């Protein structure tokens, strides 16, 4: 039976990490504390070929190859709602919300034909998958593909930038290879984060100072909001450190 799906605005998916296209990350740099998320994709994964196109191919110390997706990400603990999620469960920026939110529950980092399991609501989510909801996916094809195609295209457009960033990180932070290898060895995979400052430095963006100036107060606020929760210690440390980096970057190019 073809899967039905409709959003009930339960807001459950509006929490935690939100991977953004580079374009969206820049547009919303005044809203989301940003970090660069690395996700290794193993050669035996269904999405490996696609990941080599959207991301970079990296040789691990074991000489095995792995694809790595680099996603500019709204870096929020899983318990934290999106800053734009309103009390009524609706999005405060619906008309201009990021591609990632529009395309949900589909995911263009995977092949179009490999989306079926994404239509099964995750634990606690209240998506409507009853017969009352419209059919959204048939014969491994997305029926309304506007948002999926747009997000995929943005990912394809930004791929060369992400590859040059990977080169930079492997040159200056080569120890990251060991972390990638450890994650790739686990069946469940994993993610790691690098700083926005490294991305801005590597890519020589002319708007680096403006982006950093927008990020600094967000990082500062998040550092304060995560200060007293021992479970969020790593988040706190990252926010506090990145706040300093963003302040420094903002000063450097404007001073």
């Amino acid at each position, binding site marked *: 039976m073809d899967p039905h799906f409709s959003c009930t605005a339960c807001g459950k998916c509006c929490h935690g990490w939100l991977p953004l296209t580079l374009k969206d990350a820049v547009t919303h740099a005044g809203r989301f504390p940003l970090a660069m998320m690395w996700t290794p994709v193993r050669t035996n994964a269904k999405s490996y070929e696609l990941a080599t196109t959207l991301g970079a191919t990296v040789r691990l110390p074991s000489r095995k190859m792995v694809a790595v997706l680099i996603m500019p990400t709204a870096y929020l603990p899983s318990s934290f709602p999106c800053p734009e999620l309103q009390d009524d469960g609706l999005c405060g920026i619906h008309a201009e919300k990021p591609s990632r939110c529009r395309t949900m529950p589909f995911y263009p980092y995977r092949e179009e034909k490999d989306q079926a399991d994404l239509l099964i609501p995750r634990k606690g989510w209240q998506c409507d998958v009853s017969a009352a909801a419209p059919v959204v996916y048939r014969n491994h094809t997305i029926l309304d593909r506007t948002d999926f195609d747009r997000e995929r295209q943005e990912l394809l457009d930004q791929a060369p930038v992400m590859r040059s960033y990977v080169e*930079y990180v492997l*040159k*200056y932070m*080569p*120890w990251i290879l060991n972390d990638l290898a450890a994650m790739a060895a686990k069946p469940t995979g994993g993610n790691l984060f690098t*700083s926005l*400052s*490294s991305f801005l*430095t*590597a890519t*020589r963006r002319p708007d680096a100072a403006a982006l*950093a100036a927008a990020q600094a107060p967000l990082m500062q606020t998040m550092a304060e909001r995560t200060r007293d929760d021992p479970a969020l210690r790593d988040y706190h*440390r990252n926010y506090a*450190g990145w706040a*300093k*980096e*963003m*302040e*420094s*970057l903002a000063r*450097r190019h404007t001073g």
Partner: protein
Amino acid sequence: MTPCPCGSGRSFDGCCGPILAGAPAPTAEALMRSRYTAFVRRDLDHVERTHAPEIRDDFNRGEAERVADEAEWQRLDVVRANEEGDAATVEFLIHFRRDGKDLRHHERATFRREGGEWFYVQGDVNPKGEPRRVVKVGRNEPCPCGSGKKFKTCCGAA
């Protein structure tokens, strides 16, 4: 006297001090030491201006400032330094504490002299030892023992 943070045993004013103030480093090792001292003293301008021009834009100044702030610098060990003309390598260990952990940074750095000034060019972190070179001698090549005979009729004779 203020002992130099680089651990040379000399005073700061007689060691890294003048280099941080802009005097050219006499050797690549002296420059490397002064760059360590610059981190200890949070003088990141010195680190930045002693990067070779081709990597200067790659320098993540914000992150370097944060590291300089957060790390508790304990010791620098220069493992070996080789200088040949205007090129040099310096291998070193930096011992420091950060986030409550004792850490060690091991690097073999390459330096280049230009216009009488040394610059940091590149670094291999956790360098491997010098690769062992194994050369296979062809049967019909001159024997490496210097006898003048072919290898197969000399040391390579079965």
